[in-house]
């Protein structure tokens, strides 16, 4: 088989017209190429320095015991990775950060469901002033995450708006489950506007003929939603899921600004910051946690892409 293929290739090569002589590049074309290259040079340099080099050094440091003050670095093998799970002081902090990060991801499906519901209402219900509501719900998506977290922090204080409005006496910013519930609630509301806009755009792209045809067949609104709308906007769902999970796994502002370092809400990125930057001088450990997080995000994303052909609609 292999020999046949080789023969075919050889025959093909023979039948090819002889190679054209290399066209001489004019001065003007060179100039244009140079200008084009200069245009893309800044982002390439930026990428090499701030992304590629950072990634390479992070991987290197994750195998080193590095002291940034004395600038002494010694090879530590897998010690930093093992310390993340076995150290009596750092281990529990890392495990807690992992659990917190995963629990807080619940806001991703919640925000998608809320966004979908809102988009459905605005699309089907022909709500008066729907543009106003679109702007209103989308506002958190274009607002500063820090500003939003500060406002939400005030809302969730024991004497804050949430308890006052609902007549509750709950300490939301406690270290247990309540602070996680508060973060999931606020993140769901913050992200639902963005989801709503994308879902609405997806719904507007669904051909009305499909709805008309299904109506003739006797399908109700609910059936139409589950059998036509939802499958046809599945690319939007896929996009929101991918970006939501990646963003959620890299969450930091919730721990730092909203929770002020409260151990009930520390995320993996917050742990990395705490160990590598805040003053613990554990750059090796922080790098190891960063590498693990990056690998985990890659695996989650790959799995999603892998299974996407089973549920994501493609024309």
């Amino acid at each position, binding site marked *: 088989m292999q020999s046949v293929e080789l023969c075919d290739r050889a025959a093909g090569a023979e039948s090819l017209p002889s190679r054209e002589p290399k066209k001489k590049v004019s001065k003007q074309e060179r100039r244009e190429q140079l200008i084009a290259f200069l245009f893309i040079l800044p982002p390439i340099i930026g990428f090499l320095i701030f992304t590629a080099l950072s990634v390479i050094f992070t991987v290197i440091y994750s195998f080193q015991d590095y002291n940034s003050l004395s600038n002494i670095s010694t090879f530590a093998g897998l010690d930093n990775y093992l310390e993340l799970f076995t150290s009596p002081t750092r281990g529990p902090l890392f495990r807690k950060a992992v659990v917190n990060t995963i629990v807080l991801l619940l806001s991703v499906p919640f925000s998608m469901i809320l966004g979908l519901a809102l988009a459905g209402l605005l699309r089907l219900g022909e709500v008066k002033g729907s543009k106003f509501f679109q702007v209103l719900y989308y506002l958190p998506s274009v607002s500063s995450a820090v500003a939003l977290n500060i406002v939400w922090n005030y809302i969730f204080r024991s004497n804050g708006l949430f308890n006052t409005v609902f007549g509750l006496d709950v300490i939301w910013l406690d270290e247990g489950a309540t602070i996680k519930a508060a973060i999931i609630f606020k993140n769901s509301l913050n992200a639902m506007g963005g989801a709503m806009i994308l879902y609405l755009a997806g719904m507007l792209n669904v051909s009305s003929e499909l709805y008309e045809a299904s109506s003739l067949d006797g399908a109700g609104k609910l059936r139409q939603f589950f059998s036509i709308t939802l499958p046809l906007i599945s690319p939007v769902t896929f996009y929101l899921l991918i970006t939501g999970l990646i963003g959620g796994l890299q969450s930091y502002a919730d721990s730092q600004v909203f*929770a002020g370092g409260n151990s009930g809400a520390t995320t993996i990125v917050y742990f990395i910051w705490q160990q590598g930057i805040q003053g*613990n001088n554990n750059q090796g450990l922080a790098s190891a946690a960063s590498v693990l997080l990056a690998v985990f995000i890659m695996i989650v994303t790959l799995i999603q892409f892998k299974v996407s052909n089973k549920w994501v609609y493609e024309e």
Partner: protein
Amino acid sequence: MIKRFVGAILACVLAVTCVAACSGRGDEGNVVKPEDPIDEPVTINFWGWGDLAEQENYQTLVNQFMAEEGNENITVLYRGMSSSTYMTTLRASARNLPELFYMPDYDFLEWVSSGLLKDVSAYVTEEELSQLWPQAVDEYYYNAGTATLGQSEGASLYGLPKDLGPFTLVYNKTLLDRKIEEKGLDAEEIYATYLNPEVPMTWDQFRTLLKSLVTDKNNDGTPDDSIYGISHYEIETAVYSNNANFFNEDASEQRITDPNFIEALQFVADLTLEDHVMVPAALQSETDGFTRFLNSGCIFSFMGPWDCAQFWGFDIAFESNILPVPYNGDNPDAMSTAWVGSMGYCVSAKASSMQTAAAMRLAKYLCTNEDAQRKFYELGQQVPNIVSMAKDEYVNDTQGLLEGKDPVDRSVWVDTIDGFSEDDKIGGKVRPRYYTYSSGWYDDFLMYIDDQGLWTGVKTAEQICNAYESTFQSTLDEMIANLG
């Protein structure tokens, strides 16, 4: 073409890198001795932290220094930062430090042992040092040969103290008087028995006082009028005031299983759990203690001299005063002992001799100059470094600069700094983190006891400390190994 272009770019990058690598600061032939005049232009960068008001004050003093120095060759570029970002920025700049910068005492050992700070012994005379608080100066000595802190044979001076600040008890007098009246208590007796600036309260007295002022009829942990007795309690203060510590003298052996240590920790927890007079941990994470105090959400809290600036600028509508911290009256070896924090003016090890000379002139001006020290206490930033000035001018306000400004009993701060002898009833101690290579262990410990439920009563201090013993010992061993 493209290849040649990329080659040219790489060549440029390499050239720039080489030039940058070769342009390290240092003396290039012209070594300036400490006593030599500075007759060439020299620029020094000075980094500090503080709120905006403090940064402005520093800029004013730096300008004053440049004007008074009369040496047009010295230019100081002051850069003030917020306290939260300062150490992060400084760490990130460890390879290219400014010539002069603040160094908190609890990070001093790590930085000095890493060789990043300059030995400035030759730039200060004994006479200049003798007018300062000796314990403050002592903090910035380090013996590189034995890797030990404090003055000893062979030790050198690696910084000058910016300040020495005791963190003592403060009370909202207006709120306290209102509470006394509401509860029908005898104000005269309370002030005489409990609120004497020269006689510290015992823990029992403090608990009795708080319980008489705060009532929780439905026993739900929240005072009936939501005004707590105290915002929080400083762990180090409780531990020190029961004659205990986190470790032994050279920080090589843990002492958290010492019954006195455990008793101190349990005392703090019981203020919430049993007495319901202290803000629960969950609410403490919502609003920090001092902010709650400023908003009249509690009667007592803790404050240091540096808080005065914020206090005076906050436009608060209440009177306040300070007290020595309570101690365990049942322990015959215990005395009122607050933690005393400090910060140093340190010089980068990479600074040239001329830059060091100029930086030390500025450091000495800020640290020992009477006018500068007067300005600092007038602005509510510190107790003067000059002992004679602190004990008389500052305590008695002989210059009339603190008239009408709280706290009135500033002698408490001076007594706390000064109280190191055995006869003293009131004293102070440096924070334990000062003695260890790194300071992260303290936060780890706090997180652990919090996580184990000390503040919610899930476990007792004894259970938690016993369980953490080996971990803490390993941490100490690791830090000693890092120190070499």
